[in-house]
C-alpha cells in the first residue's frame, strides 16, 4: 500500500518536472508570452490541489464504526475531513483563478494568503474536533 502511494507520488512528481520543462522550453521558443510559463504552472498547481483535496473526505478508511464511542469519533473525523476537503478544494480553485485572471503582483501575494487561510481553517477545525472528542470521552 505504502509502495503504491510512493510510486504514485513519484510518477506525479516526474510529470510536474516534465510539464515545467515543457513550459520553460515553450517560453524560450516564444510560444508563451512573458511570465506565461509561470502563470500556467501556477494554475496547474492550483487545479492539482483542488483535485487532490476533492478526494480528501473519502480518505477516512474502510472500517465501519460499531460502538457508540467509535461512531462519535468517526463522525468528528468525517466532519474534519469534510471541512478540510472543502476549504482546500476552494482554495485550489481560487489559487488557479487568481493566477489566471489577476495581475502578477496581486496573484503572487493573495494566492499564498488563500492557501494559508485554508490550511489554518483545516488545522483549527481538526484540533477542535480532536479536543471535543477527548472532552466527550473524559466526561
Amino acid at each position, binding site marked *: 500500500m505504502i509502495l503504491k502511494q510512493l510510486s504514485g507520488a513519484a510518477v506525479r512528481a516526474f510529470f510536474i518536472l516534465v510539464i515545467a520543462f515543457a513550459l520553460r522550453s515553450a517560453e524560450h521558443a516564444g510560444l508563451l508570452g512573458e511570465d506565461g510559463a509561470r502563470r500556467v504552472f501556477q494554475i496547474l498547481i492550483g487545479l492539482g490541489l483542488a483535485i487532490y483535496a476533492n*478526494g*480528501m473526505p473519502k480518505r477516512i478508511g474502510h472500517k*465501519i464504526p460499531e460502538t457508540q464511542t467509535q*461512531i462519535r469519533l468517526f463522525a468528528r473525523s468525517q466532519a474534519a475531513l*469534510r471541512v478540510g476537503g472543502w476549504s482546500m*478544494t476552494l482554495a485550489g480553485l481560487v489559487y488557479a483563478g487568481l493566477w489566471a485572471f489577476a495581475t502578477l503582483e496581486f496573484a503572487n501575494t493573495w494566492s499564498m494568503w488563500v492557501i494559508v487561510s485554508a490550511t489554518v481553517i483545516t488545522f483549527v477545525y481538526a484540533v477542535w474536533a480532536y479536543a471535543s472528542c477527548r472532552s466527550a470521552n473524559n466526561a
Partner: protein
Amino acid sequence: MRRSLAKADSNSKQKALLTLFRCLAKYKFMNLIFKALSDPTRRKVLELLRQRPMTAGELSEHFTVSKPTMSAHFATLREAGLIEGGKTGTVITYRLNLSVLEDAILSFTQALGLGAEKPVRDEDVSKDMEKGKIL
C-alpha cells in the same frame, strides 16, 4: 497497395471510434451518481449520514416507506459509491463516502429539489424485485 491503405485507414477510424466510446463509457459512473442523487429519499439518507454513521434501522425510522424500498435506496447509493456499509452480526451500519464534488452536487440538487415530484414508490420497487433488479 490502395486496398491495403484503405484497410489501414478504416482500421485507424475504428480504433479512434473505440477510443471515443471508451472515453464516454467512463461517464457511466457519473450517471450512477446523478441517478442516486435524483431521488429525494436518497438525498435525505445522505443528509442524515452527514451527521454520523447510522444503522439501516435507524435510517429507516426517518421514512414511511417499506424496508425493501429502503434496501433498494441503499443499494443504489452503494452502487454509486456514495455510501459504504458494514455488517456486524445482523446489523448493517452505513457511513457517508462523498467527495467534495459529490457533496457539492448533492447540495445543488437539494437546493433545486430535483425529483421531489416523483420519489421512488413501494410499487416501483416491487416491480424491480419481480424483474430481479433488487435482491
